[in-house]
């Protein structure tokens, strides 16, 4: 049961501190490699020419926006079910990065939509449901700030996150369920209708986004732990806190 000791905020605080540099460095290295492949090595697309290169940002951001929401909802469920503080803090730390990824996906999509489709925005099912995802993230962040008692805020945000999780499969399958302006999935289970070198660049960027999200979320989580445990004896014993005082 040794793994469970990290469920205590004090233990996780130091563990997260050790993990952050690794994920941050990995993210930076992968981003450089991924962008080098995407912007220099990969050939142009026959129909879209150079404008397709936005996928190296757009696709990882869109995937992360959905994946982070599911992770946030998972920790919300854990917080509700187990009544653990760290689970709620995990969920709390993910929301801003999720919102950033969603905004990035919408923004890059709009920039790409103009030269490709001929419009920045269309109210099709894929784009509308992704916009709802952004509002869910922002709503959860707002709800937390509206409630003074952190433990009550944990519960409210967890419930909202769980209710909103139905939106994720809607985003993902929207292109199959309805006629949409947005095209279907390029990368499906077992096959991808994309050039190998483009796929390689895309996957490297996906991992870069993953590690970036983990690093940033852990940094935020550490700040949240310190803020919410400010009165605890272990925080007062921390070297960095002693220095400050």
């Amino acid at each position, binding site marked *: 049961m040794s793994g469970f000791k990290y469920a205590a905020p004090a233990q996780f605080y130091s563990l997260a501190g050790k993990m952050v540099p690794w994920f941050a460095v990995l993210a930076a290295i992968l981003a450089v490699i991924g962008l080098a492949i995407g912007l220099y090595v990969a050939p142009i697309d026959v*129909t879209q020419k150079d404008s397709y290169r936005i996928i190296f940002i757009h696709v990882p951001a869109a995937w992360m926006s959905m994946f982070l929401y599911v992770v946030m909802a998972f920790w919300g469920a854990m917080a509700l079910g187990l009544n653990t503080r760290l689970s709620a803090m995990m969920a709390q730390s993910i929301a801003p990065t999720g919102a950033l990824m969603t905004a990035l996906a919408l923004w890059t999509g709009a920039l790409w939509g103009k030269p490709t*489709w001929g419009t920045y925005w269309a109210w099709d099912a894929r784009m509308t449901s992704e916009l709802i995802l952004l509002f869910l993230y922002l709503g959860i962040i707002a709800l937390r700030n509206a409630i003074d008692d952190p433990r009550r805020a944990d519960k409210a945000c967890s419930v909202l996150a*769980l209710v909103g999780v139905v939106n994720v499969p809607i985003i993902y399958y929207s292109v199959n369920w309805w006629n949409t*302006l947005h*095209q279907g999935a390029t990368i499906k289970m077992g096959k991808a*209708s994309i050039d190998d070198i483009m796929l390689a660049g895309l996957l490297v960027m996906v991992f870069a986004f993953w590690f970036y999200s983990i690093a940033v979320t852990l940094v935020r989580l550490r700040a949240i732990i310190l803020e919410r445990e400010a*009165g*605890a004896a272990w925080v007062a014993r921390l070297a960095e806190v002693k220095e400050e005082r």
Partner: protein
Amino acid sequence: MSAEQETTQETVTASGSIKSRHKRFLWIAVGLVFVVAIVALVLNALGSSITYFYSPTDVMQNKAPQGRAFRVGGMVEGGSVVRGTDGLTVYFNVTDTAETVSVVYTGILPDLFAEEKGVVAQGKLDDHGVFQATQVLAKHDENYVAPEVQAALDEAHKARAAETLKQ
């Protein structure tokens, strides 16, 4: 109450009530099932109004809205694009291989507009069954192809066509 005291208290309540913990997870699961059911019913009720465009088959079967603007989507039929003398008006057919809708549009077309490629036009059907478009968008597919690969594909296609001609 310090955080450490809170932790001990939590451990006691949590370990002392495994049952209530299971009960909470059960309630979460039940709640999720209801939310999914509600959303599924709403989406089902909204039905085709979520659809961004109608296919030419929908239009021919009168499934598309009558007398008001809607969008029609499909492929630009090969060889159907005709440009008007004013240089801005363009006539083309949208097809889903089963049915075809004639479209008239005056304005600037997106760069990716081409024959045999996806298109979504917004507008109204006139009395002659011609779709008077106010906006034309290019809908592109999910394939990303490098120029060399496309060249190789075209070569293979030509070779096959020559083969068939010989026979």
